[in-house]
C-alpha cells in the first residue's frame, strides 16, 4: 500500500491538472481585480463600498435620472460629491494634544464616559466603479447591534442624511436605480456566535495591546504602515463602538503614527465639528476626522488626487466616506 502522503496526494480534491483552477492565463475577473489593485483601488470589502456621487441640492434627482435614462457610455451624469471643506486653523490640534485630551476624558469621566459596545452605527458613501459605466455613489446607513446572548442583528438602509426624504441611488444587480429614502436593503438576525480573533474579539483599551490587536486584524506580522492602520481602524469601527478608554488608546496610537498631519477643522456630513488629519499617498488623500474634545474617531474620507479616465474618476472625487455614530 502506498504511503500516507501518496494516498493523500491522490485524494487531492482540486488537482492542478483538473477541470477547475488549472494554471493558465488569468480570467476576466482576475484581470479586473489586478487592475483595480494596481490602481490603488480596494476591490474587496466586507461590506459594499459606498460612494459619493450625487450632485448637491435639487439637481441630484435630475442627474440621477439622466444617468438612468442615458445609460452607460455617456459622460458620468452623477457628479462626484465634494470632499469635506477644511477650515484652516491657526493652531490646529496636534494628535499628541488630542491623545492627552482623550486620556484625560477617559480618566476623569470614568463613571459617565461612553462605554465600549459591540456593534456599529455608521453612515457611509461609497463609490462603485466599473470599466464600462460611470462611477456611482451609494449612501447607506448600517446598524449592527449585539445582544447579551451573543446573537446580533444587522440593518442596512439606503439613505443620505444630507438629502432627507429624497430618493436614494442603489446599484444592486449592476444597474443603478432609485429607491425611496430609508428603503431597507438588508435586515438580518444572526444566532449566537463567538470568535477570539480581531476584529470580532474585544479590543483592548491599552495602546500597546490595541496596536497588536489591530496588527492581527490586518493579518500582518510587521508593524502597520499608516495606510494599513487607517484601513484597519475603518474595519475596527465597522465592528465596535469604542468607549472613552479605547478611543484614548487609539488616539495615542495615532499620535505616534508617521505621516498624519493636522490640517484644520471640518464640519462632517452629519454636521459634527471635527479636527482633520490628512495622510497623502500615491493617488489618494485620506482625511481622518476626530472629535477635538474627546479624541473619538468620527469619520474617514478617501479622495482621489489623480484622475483615472478608465473608470470615469476625476481628481477630487470622493472614493469613500464613513461617519461613525454611537
Amino acid at each position, binding site marked *: *500500500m*502506498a*504511503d*500516507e*502522503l501518496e*494516498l*493523500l*496526494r*491522490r*485524494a*487531492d*480534491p*482540486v*488537482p*492542478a491538472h*483538473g477541470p*477547475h*483552477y*488549472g*494554471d*493558465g492565463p*488569468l480570467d476576466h*475577473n*482576475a484581470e479586473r*481585480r*489586478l487592475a483595480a*489593485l*494596481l490602481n490603488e483601488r*480596494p*476591490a*474587496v470589502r*466586507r461590506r459594499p463600498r459606498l460612494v459619493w456621487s450625487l450632485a448637491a441640492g435639487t439637481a441630484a434627482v435630475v442627474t440621477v435620472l439622466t444617468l438612468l435614462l442615458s445609460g452607460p457610455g455617456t459622460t458620468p451624469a452623477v457628479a462626484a460629491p465634494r470632499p469635506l471643506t477644511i477650515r484652516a486653523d491657526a493652531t490646529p490640534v496636534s494628535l499628541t494634544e488630542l491623545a492627552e485630551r482623550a486620556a484625560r476624558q477617559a480618566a476623569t469621566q470614568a463613571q459617565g464616559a461612553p462605554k465600549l459596545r459591540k456593534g456599529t452605527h455608521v453612515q457611509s458613501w461609497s463609490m462603485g466603479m466599473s470599466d464600462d459605466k460611470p462611477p456611482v455613489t451609494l449612501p447607506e446607513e448600517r446598524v449592527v447591534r449585539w445582544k447579551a446572548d451573543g446573537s*446580533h442583528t*444587522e440593518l442596512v438602509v439606503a439613505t443620505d442624511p444630507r438629502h432627507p426624504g429624497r430618493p436614494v441611488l442603489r446599484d444592486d444587480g449592476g444597474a443603478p436605480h432609485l429607491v425611496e429614502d430609508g428603503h431597507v436593503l438588508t435586515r*438580518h438576525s*444572526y*444566532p449566537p*456566535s463567538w*470568535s477570539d*480573533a480581531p476584529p*470580532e474579539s474585544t479590543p483592548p483599551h491599552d495602546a500597546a495591546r490595541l496596536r497588536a490587536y489591530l496588527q492581527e486584524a*490586518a*493579518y*500582518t*506580522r*510587521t508593524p502597520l504602515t499608516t*495606510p*494599513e492602520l487607517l*484601513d484597519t481602524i475603518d474595519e475596527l469601527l465597522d465592528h465596535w463602538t469604542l468607549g472613552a478608554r479605547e478611543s484614548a488608546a487609539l488616539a495615542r496610537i495615532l499620535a505616534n503614527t508617521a505621516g498624519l498631519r493636522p490640517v484644520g477643522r471640518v464640519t462632517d456630513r452629519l454636521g459634527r465639528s471635527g479636527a482633520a488629519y490628512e495622510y497623502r499617498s500615491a493617488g489618494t488623500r485620506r482625511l481622518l476626522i476626530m472629535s477635538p474634545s474627546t479624541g473619538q474617531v468620527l469619520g474617514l474620507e478617501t479622495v482621489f488626487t489623480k484622475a483615472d479616465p478608465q473608470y470615469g474618476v476625476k481628481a477630487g472625487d470622493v472614493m469613500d466616506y464613513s461617519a461613525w455614530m454611537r
Partner: protein
Amino acid sequence: MSNDEIFAAAYREHYWAVSRYVARRLDGRAGEVEEVVAEVFTVAWRRRADLPESPLPWLYGVARNCLANAVRGHGRRRRLVHRLGNDETAHGRQIVDSPDAEAPGAWVHEALARLSEADQEVLRLTAWEELGIDEVAVALGCGSRAASMRLHRARRRLRAEIDRLRPALTTGPTATKEHGHG
C-alpha cells in the same frame, strides 16, 4: 522592478495556485473561492513591500489567515462552517480515482478529518500544495525544524487513522510495517 511590478508578476504566476489552495479548503465552491482569493491578494497588495523572493508559500500563509477569518466572520460564518463540515458530496465528485480502492478519496479525507486542524494543514501543504519543508515553515509562520517535526508527527497520526479505517488494506501483502501506528 518596482514593488508594484513584482506584485503583478506574482499575482499572474500564482493566482491559480492560490485559488486551488482556497478551493481545496472550501470544497471548490466557485463563488466563495473567488471572493476569498480576492481578499488574499488585497492583503498581499497592502503588504507588497514584504513579498519574499519566492512568494507562493507566503501567499499560502496569507490565504490561511483569510480563510480563518472568512470562517470566523459573522454572516458567512455559519454558511462556511456548515460547508466545511458537512459537504461530503462535494468531496466525492472531485476526487481523483486511485487504483487501489473503489473510492479512496473519501476514506483518506475521512482519516484526514479526524486529525487536528494543525496536523491537517501541514499534511495538505505537503501533499496537495507540494511544498518542501522550508516552504511549509514559511506558510505556517514557524521555523523549519518545527515544521519538520509537525509533519513527522502528523504523518504518523494520519497513518494511524488510515490503518484504523482500512485494516483490511494495511494487513494485506502490500502493507508496510514501518508506517504502522505512531
